[in-house]
């Protein structure tokens, strides 16, 4: 069947199997930044934005996203031109093996787009669907704070009073 979507800003018409999940469709397009880890909704390494909202692309039937705007990690930035959230993850040392990182960054993007200055509780809730088996999360939460400051600075408005909770 045909599927019409915008992927990272580009309109696409794709031929998909009616039962395919979105994650597989994206990876077959070469967008392998989206990982398929557990394939059952536990790890979050498959997280993508669907109309700005994070969703597990391993659970999402591709046919369900007809007409939607999909953003994958490739749509945020790359080595030459990284997104402030990607920079923040590097600066905080929040990346070890890196398998969880695209999903973590996608969830962080959705959170900070909607809530520029989230409480730690909200950060934990928003990342509750992303597992990391390496870092122990502390540096990931630091990265979210650093990203918060970078984005606030870039948009020139927010003065966050919060600091990274582990200086």
């Amino acid at each position, binding site marked *: 069947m045909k599927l019409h979507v915008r992927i990272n800003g580009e309109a696409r018409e794709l031929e998909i*199997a*009616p*039962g395919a999940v979105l994650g597989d469709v994206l990876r077959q397009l070469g967008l392998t930044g989206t990982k398929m880890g557990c394939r059952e909704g536990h790890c979050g390494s498959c997280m993508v934005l669907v109309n700005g909202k994070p969703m597990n692309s391993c*659970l999402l039937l591709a*046919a369900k996203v007809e007409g939607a705007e999909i953003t994958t990690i490739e749509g945020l930035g790359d080595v030459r031109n990284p997104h402030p959230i990607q920079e923040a993850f590097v600066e905080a040392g929040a990346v070890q093996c890196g398998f969880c990182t695209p999903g973590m960054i996608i969830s962080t993007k959705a959170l900070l787009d909607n809530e520029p200055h989230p409480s730690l509780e909200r950060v934990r809730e928003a990342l509750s669907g992303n597992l990391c088996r390496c870092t122990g999360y502390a540096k990931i939460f630091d990265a979210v704070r650093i990203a918060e400051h970078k984005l606030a600075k870039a948009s020139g408005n927010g003065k966050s009073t919060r600091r990274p909770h582990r200086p």
Partner: protein
Amino acid sequence: MPVTITEYLRPDSLKEALALLAEDPGKNIAVAGGVSIVLSGAPRRVRAIDLQNVGLNEIASTKDELCLGAMATLDDIIHSPAATKVASGLLPTALRTAASEPIRRLITVGGNIVQCYYWATLPPLLLALDAKIHLRTSEHRRTLKATEFFAQPPMRLMEKGELVTDVTIPLKPSRRAAFEKMAKTSNDYALIHVVVSYVDQRGKMSDPRVVVAACTSLPTRVREAEEFLEGKTVDLNTAMEAGQIASHHVKLRGDFRASADYRRRVLRVMVQRALLKAADKQTIS
């Protein structure tokens, strides 16, 4: 590919969806969030009828009841001011413990209660709130009480081509309630769910509900505990005794996650805690 979906249809109205489902009931599957359809890997070849655009997504309330459309998601309920009015915010508090935020955006009311995994979050809440489930085929409609709907695995009770259209919950201003979940990690499947509710009549319990789930195959009202609580004031002794009664009157499941004996011991304390929490008397746990 999880299910052998041969064709994917997106009807624009409920009438059209019901007509499609009636065509060849055995060969169709209604798709709500699609979460368990993707995970279950059903072997047979089916035609998918997506319910996203058939107008069942709303959450609305009147003076007397809250109405949850079958396609409303758990996340919609959490953020709905109307849903917060039920039993001092029981629904959002409890549903926040289900899965993770992104998955709660997929899970629908209809999918959650029809699939009714034993650890599902919504079914025990609906039992404790005296909800009604509204169903429809292309031919007729019917309404079932939650106690009837969850008396057997709901899928067994549904007719071919039948859909849940919505769920209604009576609004009683003086209803108090509390929810407890026990799981190994914060977003793992529940080992035990407890929901208690009662109408507060000047400090005394009227119409109490004690519902346990996840430790039983189906969500279950414990009538013995409810009878014991009727007319009583919640205090530590009453809550302890109700916990004792509840834990001895339900058939508990044991599996690789936890033994029945372990669940019985924990259940007793959870019922006790839930009652004290509902009455705002959490001085001791």
